[in-house]
């Protein structure tokens, strides 16, 4: 356990009452923990213990501000026993998502586009900007993610699903009854990321900066 968590336990022993965590903080926390469980085996192990009640529950911090602090600072890997020659600290698991966002912003102004209030503009104006966004984002996507369709048939084609089809890659809609084989029409051929390759990130790099502020001197 890290020193910080030790400190939290000490606080708890001084008898602070548990408080309700505000909704938005919970939202941030849920987001962070989702990725941590997904990418961090050690954390997932501990989370399971927490869920199963086998891990002693550390009392919550006192304030929402502290909670927020926890969410933003505890992205590092929980410290494991340190070895003599240590590899550089692993990047936080959210980096992949942040780097992809920065790529889409850099190549196609993706975030600028989504963050702009489009209600006051006509279709022609939005369309002109959308071209830039489409061209750039497509380039970024093509260069980093290899996309293939889940089903190779044309949309609208009749397909038959035998027993044991991959339910994770195919969802059924409509009137599904009885047992496979199912016969149906392909409505959406699905997308599968066959491979994804993201830029390498410097150990010191703050990936949360999706686009730096520009100042012309």
């Amino acid at each position, binding site marked *: 356990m890290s020193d910080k968590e030790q400190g939290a336990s000490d606080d708890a022993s001084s008898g602070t009452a548990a408080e309700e965590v505000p909704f938005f903080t919970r939202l941030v926390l849920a987001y962070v923990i989702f990725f941590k469980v997904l990418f961090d085996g050690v954390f997932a192990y501990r989370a399971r213990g927490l869920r199963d009640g086998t891990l002693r529950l550390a009392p919550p911090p006192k304030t929402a501000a502290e909670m927020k602090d926890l969410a933003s600072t505890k992205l590092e890997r929980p410290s494991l026993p340190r070895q003599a020659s240590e590899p550089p600290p692993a990047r936080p698991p959210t980096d992949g998502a942040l*780097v992809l966002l*920065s790529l889409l912003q*850099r190549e196609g*102004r993706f975030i*600028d*586009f989504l*963050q*702009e209030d*489009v209600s006051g*503009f006509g279709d022609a*104006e*939005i369309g*002109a*900007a959308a*071209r*830039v*966004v489409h*061209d750039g984002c497509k380039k970024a996507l093509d260069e980093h993610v290899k996309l293939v369709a889940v089903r190779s048939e044309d949309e609208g084609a009749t397909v038959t699903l035998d027993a044991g089809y991959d339910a994770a890659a195919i969802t059924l809609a409509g009137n599904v009854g009885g047992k496979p084989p199912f016969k149906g029409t392909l409505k959406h051929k699905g997308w599968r990321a066959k491979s994804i*390759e*993201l*830029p*390498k*990130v*410097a150990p*010191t*790099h*703050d*990936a949360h900066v999706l686009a*730096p502020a*520009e100042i*012309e001197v």
Partner: protein
Amino acid sequence: MTRAEATPPRPVEGGGSQERFSVGIDLGTTHCAVARLELASAIEHGDKVLPETMPIPQMIAVGQSEARPLLPSFLYLPPEGENVELALPWIVDDSEPLVLAGELARAKAASLPGRVVSSSKSWLCHPGIDPRTPVLPAVAASVAEEGARKLSPVDAAVALLTHLREAWDVAHPELPLSLQDVTLTVPASFDARARDLTAEAARRSGLQQVTLLEEPQAALYAWVAQSKGGWRKQVAVGDVILVIDVGGGTTDFSLIAVREAEGSFELHRVAVGEHILLGGDNMDLALAHRMKVKLGRDLDAWQMHSLTHACRAAKESLLGSDAPETAPIVVVGRGTKLIGGTLKTELTRAELEETLVDGFFPKVESSARPIKRPRAGLRQLGLPYADDAGITRHLSGFLARHLQTMASTASSDGADHTHRTFVHPTAVLFNGGVMRAAPLRRRTLELLDAWTAADGGQPVRVLEGADLDLAVARGAAYMGAVRRGRGIRIRGGTVRSYYVGIESSAPAVPGIEPEVHALCVAPFGMEEGQSADEAPQELGLVVGERAQFRFFGSTSRREDRPGAMLERWAEGELEELAPIETTLSSETRPEGDVVPVHLRASLTDVGTLLLEAVPLEGSATSADERWKLELTVREEG
């Protein structure tokens, strides 16, 4: 010239067990590429093994790096205190200020022009500067930062090559690039000094076994390689192959003749064009200026950059297959407000064809010649960009200029050149990103056919090429196997004859410079490893003193042998190059002694010209006493 000294093919095993690859490096004006060929398998399986390109890791943004097929030839010199958060897979030497190559540097060019070096290769052969002096980035005084860092064109080449070497070494930790057989390409139009400087940059970046190869020849090697042996059916004895290489910044022409020797083909590179600074970047800029007029408003530097970028994308879409009639041009605002600040217009196919096809490949007669503009008296130091943007006028001039060459050197092609007004190529090989555009290839072929038809010749064929962006690197890698006796070799040799200026001994007349005669020291067509005969003229050099000579080159005087003394020459026949010099230092001779010497030229195995002053027979104090003449002279302090 002694013909017997041609280099024997290198042994298969070469320098040792760690030499496994032939590596081709395309050090381009706008992009670099690296290709490799495993030598043992190339020797064993011959034409079936193709060189493959190597992805190059590079910084693409602050804190982010990734491997891409091409390395943009841009160098970023970060301001002091800026942390670009290196994420390269190798450790960058931090004892010297950082020089960063690649995509991040290219992206910075728009916002920080005073800190980004671009087109450094074109400066290597700039006649007006010493390429070892720090002059880059070459920006107008108005944007130059006080005390900003500068690189010399040679430093810039070293930085790019060092990046490529690191990228190789990370990918092949057991087989460092310094131990591989490296072929580095240069424009065919590079003169002796620029080649020398390129070889020097390669040495300084830690490459040890480097051979230089001309880019159009590399393109032809790539075509030979990718035909997997089928090329022999596509050419015939008597063919004259015209290589048209239009890259991002330069246009390069070469003529390669197919001849017969002892029952098999021989390829001879018989002519190369002048250094023409004209390429794809000029085309994008021309489109951008046209679109700026259409937008009808002033644009700042950043918007102009985005507009150029948009024009390049529109150009590629309109020149591709199934091209639409128009392509939208959108320049978005620089701030986060994307939609409000958008400038919008469109580029039509007609406009594109007018600007590019008619502007850069105008329909001209074969008698057309490039237009030279008179220079304004005062010019900012910059690159000597081509005055005439008409590539086809440069081409017709090139073909006419080398008619004499073909007539004098063509022994076995059987064609009668005497009634022609220019060289008739029989086949064309396109290279360079610009020539990917079908309308530009079509226009070039139309014109070549029209010219030859009017001159009593036959239409030209197209040699379908490989990937026009990567062919040069691949062809250079293929060359490594050729040097080991595998596959056909293009015989090239020097494309210029070289002369030193000798002042005539006439009575001094105040105000009149003594007449200069040109003494031929190196003949046209020397091949790697060959030495030319010594010029019989005796020159007296003083021990301990620096001797400087004026130096000239000619691409058109091919008959001059060493010792030929020219008293006059036609306008444009001889081109003055940077001066050459030597300092006679000798431990065995007293200072001030006059040593009678002959000048001797040879072409090194690397492909660079070597000029030496050799003491006259009987006057040498040791068997190997000689002094090198430096082709690259430092400017007087």
